[in-house]
C-alpha cells in the first residue's frame, strides 16, 4: 500500500489543455473520489495515474517513488473499467489469474492467490463460467477480483457502477465500501454521480474544465462549498440559486434585492461590494421554510407540482423572475394545497457568491 501525489500535473492534446496544473496528495489507505460533469477531465486524470495517458508536464509519485514516466505495468496499480474489460474468451478463473500467468507464476502460486480472492468476492461457484454467462454485478466482482489478485498499491475505478441498474448499483456501492474497509488499499474512484461520491469517499475532489475546484470530505463540500459550481454539483436535489442585486451596504450588513421586490439583509462579506453589484444567494432545498402567508422578507414562489415521497415532499416551482426553485418539506402536508408559497431564508444557512461564482462568505 502507498500514498500518491500529483504535482502540477498537466495534459495537453495538441493545443487543447485537458488537465491544467493539478496538484493533489492522496494518503495511504484513503478513498478519494474524483467527481465532475462530463468532459471535466476526471477520467483523463485517472488514466494518467494509471499510465494509460502520458503526463505532459508535472510529476506523479506512488509510495514516494517518481513514476511519471514509468510503464503502467510497473506502477503497482490495478484498474477497474466502466465496461469491466473482462477477457471474453477466458473463464472467470482465467480472467482472475491472467496477470499472474503472464508473470510466469506456477499453477500452484496462481491458485494460492486467486482462490482466496474468489472466496472473498463470492465467485467460487462461478469459476468455470465465461463473462457472457455472468450478470452485471458478477462481472463487476470479477473485474474487482482481477485487480485484487495482483495486490496493487493503488486501486483505480473508472465509473465502475454506471452500467448497472439502480438497485444493483446501491448494492455494489455498499460492497465496495465494505471491501475498502476490509483491505484498506488506497483507492481513487471516478464517478459523475454525486451520491456515489458522497457515500463512498473519505475525500471528494471536484473537477471542472481540467482544474480542481475543491477538495474536501463529503460534508465539507456540502456545508462549505467554495464556489457556486461545487454548491450546485454536490447535493440532491440541487441547491437553489437566487440572483440578487446589492442595494445598500453598511458596516455589518448587505442589503439585497431578491426577485419579487423582496429586501433581504445578509451579513457583510470581506469583499467590498457596491450597490448595483449582482450576486447569487444559494440555499439548499431543506433549508427553506415555507408558509402559505407572506412574512417579512419572504419570497413568493408559484408551485408547479409536488413530489410526495412519504417521509419527505418536494415542491417544484418558480420565483417571480422565472428562476426555478425546489423546496424540501417534511411537516404539515396541508400546505401542498396552496398555489403560492412564501419562502423564508435564514441568512446563516445561505451561501453568497459573486458574479464569477466565487464564495463571498
Amino acid at each position: 500500500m502507498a500514498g500518491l501525489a500529483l504535482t502540477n500535473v498537466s495534459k495537453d492534446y495538441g493545443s487543447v489543455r485537458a488537465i491544467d496544473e493539478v496538484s493533489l496528495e492522496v494518503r495511504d489507505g484513503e478513498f478519494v473520489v474524483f467527481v465532475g460533469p462530463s468532459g471535466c477531465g476526471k477520467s483523463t486524470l485517472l488514466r494518467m495515474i494509471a499510465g494509460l495517458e502520458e503526463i505532459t508536464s508535472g510529476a506523479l509519485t506512488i509510495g514516494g517513488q517518481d513514476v511519471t514516466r514509468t510503464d503502467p505495468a510497473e506502477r503497482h496499480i490495478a484498474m477497474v473499467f466502466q465496461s469491466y474489460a473482462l477477457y471474453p474468451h477466458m473463464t472467470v478463473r482465467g480472467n482472475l489469474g491472467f496477470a499472474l500467468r503472464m508473470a510466469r507464476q506456477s499453477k500452484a502460486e496462481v491458485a494460492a492467490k486467486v482462490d482466496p480472492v474468489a472466496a472473498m468476492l463470492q465467485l467460487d461457484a462461478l469459476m468455470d463460467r465465461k463473462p457472457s454467462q455472468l450478470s452485471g454485478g458478477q462481472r463487476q466482482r470479477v473485474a474487482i477480483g482481477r485487480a485484487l489478485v495482483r495486490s496493487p498499491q493503488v486501486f483505480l475505478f473508472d465509473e465502475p457502477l454506471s452500467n448497472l441498474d439502480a438497485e444493483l448499483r446501491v448494492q455494489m456501492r455498499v460492497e465496495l465500501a465494505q471491501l475498502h474497509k476490509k483491505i484498506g488499499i488506497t483507492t481513487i474512484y471516478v464517478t459523475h454521480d454525486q451520491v456515489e461520491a458522497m457515500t463512498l469517499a473519505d475525500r471528494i475532489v471536484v473537477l471542472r474544465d481540467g482544474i480542481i475546484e475543491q477538495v474536501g470530505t463529503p460534508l465539507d463540500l456540502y456545508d462549505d462549498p467554495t464556489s457556486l459550481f461545487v454548491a450546485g454539483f454536490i447535493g440532491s436535489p440541487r441547491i437553489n440559486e437566487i440572483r440578487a442585486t446589492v442595494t445598500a451596504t453598511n458596516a455589518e450588513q448587505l442589503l439585497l434585492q431578491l426577485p419579487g421586490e423582496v429586501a433581504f439583509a445578509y451579513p457583510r462579506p470581506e469583499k467590498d461590494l457596491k450597490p448595483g453589484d449582482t450576486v447569487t444567494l444559494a440555499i439548499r432545498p431543506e433549508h427553506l421554510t415555507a408558509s402559505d402567508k407572506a412574512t417579512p422578507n419572504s419570497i413568493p414562489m408559484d408551485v408547479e407540482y409536488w413530489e410526495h415521497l412519504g417521509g419527505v415532499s418536494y415542491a417544484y416551482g418558480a420565483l417571480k423572475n422565472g428562476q426555478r426553485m425546489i423546496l424540501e418539506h417534511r411537516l404539515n402536508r396541508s400546505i401542498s394545497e396552496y398555489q403560492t408559497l412564501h419562502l423564508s431564508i435564514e441568512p446563516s444557512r445561505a451561501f453568497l457568491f459573486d458574479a464569477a461564482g466565487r464564495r463571498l462568505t
Partner: protein
Amino acid sequence: MIRVPAITRRLATAFLTALALVWMVPVLMMLAVAFTPPEKRVTGFGGLVVEEVSLRNFGIVFADAPILHHLLNSLVITLSSVFFVVLFGAMAAYAFARMRVRGKNIWFFLLITTLMLPVPTLIVPLFQINKSLGILDTYLGLILPYTALGLPFAIIILRGFFEALPRELEEAARLDGVSQPRIFWFIALPLSWPALSVVVIFQFMTSFNEFVLALVTLDSDSLKPLSLVPLIYSGQFFTQPGAMFATLTLITVPVVVFYFAMQRFMIGGLTTGAVKG
C-alpha cells in the same frame, strides 16, 4: 425490423430461386456427365437428364491418374499459403489498427491498390521473380505469390476487426503487465476468430482453385495441384468426357466440403466490425 409486404417477399424468393437454378445448370451438367456410364452417350436437355447412374468414370480416373497425389500437392500449397496469410496478415493488421506506424495510411492505401490488379497482369512479373529466386517448378513458387496476393484482403478484413475490439481490454492487459506482442497473441488474436475464419475460407478457396499462375510456375506433373489435373489429362481423356467431368467433380469436392464446414463462421465474420455491437 422493417416489414416487407408478403407479395414482395414471394416475388423475391421466386426470382432468387430462378437465379439459383440457372446458376446450378453447369454444376448439374458436370455431375450428370460424370455419373453417366462411360459407354453411354449423354442424352436429353444438354445432358441434364441422367438415365442410369454409374461410378465407373471415377474408377477410370483413379486408375489412370494419381488424383490423391495431386490432392496432396493442392493441400500442401493451399494450407501453407493459408498459414502464412493468417500469420503475417494478422500481425500486419494489428499493427495497422493499434500501433504507431510511420506513414500508416499511405501503406494501407498501397495495399488496397494491389487488390485492384487482376492476377493475369501479374503473371509475367511473378514468373520473372520466381525465376530469379530459383523457385520455378517448386511448391514455394506458388506458396509465396499466393501469400503475397492474399495478404491485402486479409489485412483489410482483420484491421477492421481489430479496430472494433474494445480498447479497454488491451489497456486492462497492459495494466496486468502484458507486453504488446503478448496482448496480440493472448487477447486480440483469440478474440478475432470470426474475422480469421473469413480469411481462412477465402484464402483456402482462392489458393485451391487458382489456375493460371500454377500453370506457368509448375512444370513437373508430380508437383501439380488438382486445379491443373483436367489439363494434364485432357489429351488422355479427350475421348472420355465422363472421366473428364468425374475429375472436375472430384476437384470441387474438397472446396465444397470445406465451405460447408466453415460457412456459419463466414457469415458471422463478414459482418463483424461493420457495426459496433
